[in-house]
């Protein structure tokens, strides 16, 4: 019975974490490039009261008696489905259609990865994220350049004064990972490479690596489906409730035993 109390408590704390994750997904349902997270659970160790197949005095037991000790959260899975593309008409807004990531240089010199393509220019004309981190490879657009176009294959062109044909200013490259779900989330729409994600594979958009292509003037919305999250929230709530009922039942049974009269 004491087991039941701890088991139910493990269920309640798992559902609490689940609700935290759902709340974060909902809060970010309109964050550009946000990736939905889902918590995964595992069952905990089992206590063997009777081992299956053990010989007893009279016969061999065909099935054992094993009591599970609850649940625990195992991993947070990043759901990597495509988000919807929203038209913004800003020439430096880029959306990736496919599984690639942009590379950006953090102030500490490390490389981070993002799906949020809200780029702008800094005071030197370099393409940077909304936090001011430069895009890798660095591309600078002169102040007097007009009609910046970025093709779906990542080629950045602009017309310079006195020229009729646009000149190529750079090539945007994307990366992918053996296991994109293993990237570490750093906040600020940024992700970081980990041992579990594997090393980044770099290439031009539209190549054979499955990086996807770019859409200029579009931003990728979060891939959180609000309706699904609401359903998950109701399920988490009910599961929390039933685990709390177990605690009540165990407590009632225990108190009855304590108050048994002879």
């Amino acid at each position, binding site marked *: 019975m004491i087991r039941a109390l701890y*088991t139910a408590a493990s269920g309640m704390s798992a559902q609490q974490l689940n609700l935290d994750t759902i709340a974060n997904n909902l809060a970010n349902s309109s964050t550009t490039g946000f990736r939905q997270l889902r918590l995964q659970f595992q069952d905990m160790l089992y206590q063997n009261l009777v081992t299956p197949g053990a010989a007893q005095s009279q016969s061999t037991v065909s099935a054992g008696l094993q009591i599970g000790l609850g649940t625990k959260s195992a991993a947070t899975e990043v759901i990597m489905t495509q988000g919807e593309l929203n038209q913004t008409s800003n020439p430096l807004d880029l959306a990736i259609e496919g599984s690639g990531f942009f590379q950006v240089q953090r102030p500490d010199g490390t490389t981070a990865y993002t799906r949020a393509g809200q780029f702008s220019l800094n005071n030197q004309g370099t393409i940077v994220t909304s936090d001011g981190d430069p895009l890798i490879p660095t591309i600078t657009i002169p102040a007097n350049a007009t009609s910046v176009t970025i093709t779906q294959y990542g080629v950045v062109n602009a017309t310079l004064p006195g020229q009729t044909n646009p000149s190529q200013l750079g090539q945007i490259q994307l990366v992918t990972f053996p296991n994109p779900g293993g990237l570490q989330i750093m906040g600020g729409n940024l992700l970081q490479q980990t041992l579990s994600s594997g090393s980044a594979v770099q290439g031009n958009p539209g190549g054979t690596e499955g990086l996807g292509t770019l859409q200029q003037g579009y931003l990728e919305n979060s891939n959180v489906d609000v309706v699904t999250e609401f359903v998950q929230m109701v399920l988490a709530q009910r599961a929390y409730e039933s685990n709390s009922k177990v605690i009540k039942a165990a407590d009632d049974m225990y108190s*009855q*035993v304590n108050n048994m009269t002879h």
Partner: protein
Amino acid sequence: MAGMDSGYYAALAGLVARTQALDTAASNLANANTSGYRAEREYFRSVLLDPLGGNSQLGATVNDFGVVGGDRLDLSQGVLTPTGNALDMAIEGQGFFAVETAGGVRYTRDGSFHRGKDGRLVTASEEPVLSSAGKPIAVPPGEVSVGMDGVISVAGGAVGAVGVFDFPAGTQLRPEGKNRYRPPEKVAAVAAKAASVHQGALEGANQDVIQGSLDLIMMQRQAETMQRALTIFHTEFNKTAAEELSRV
């Protein structure tokens, strides 16, 4: 006198059995959101080899609720929920994925797989998922599609097939935690015949919250019955016996 005492112990054993059953019900409910979790169902067996049913209804009732004989995995299907992740897989029908662990091959219904850092298909615990031939499966980067037969294709070319295995009827699998099950020794897994793989979905636990709550209420009431029976056996019968015997 012997009959009365054995009834008393039967009721006591029944009460202990209910508390064990409550532990299992708690574990089933705690895992209501665990992918591929198979609920445990207890079965009870009578406590006395020679039940008192012939002459005492109370004795028979108590005896029928005897001790927990063991528990079996409920292998019924859980609900499939789409996730959108290309390497998430769910089994519809009877069967298990095979996983290579430090302790040997284990079986699971939790198909939340991903590409490991060495490019192999692995579980959430980073353990390789095995093919139908029992080998780890290397999945090169690229667009993945998984057929109902478990064949994995990357960019249109087949790279391997995820194995789905089943066991002879009546095999008792032992849960190990981490969503893994272990077959008894000397039992060999065979290719599942009535199973299909669904890509981009996970199978939920087969414990629904409503059934779990009902089980809980039943367990509580049965425990109350056992406690009442204990009191009757102990107090009423002994009192009657003491009073009647003194008159003889």
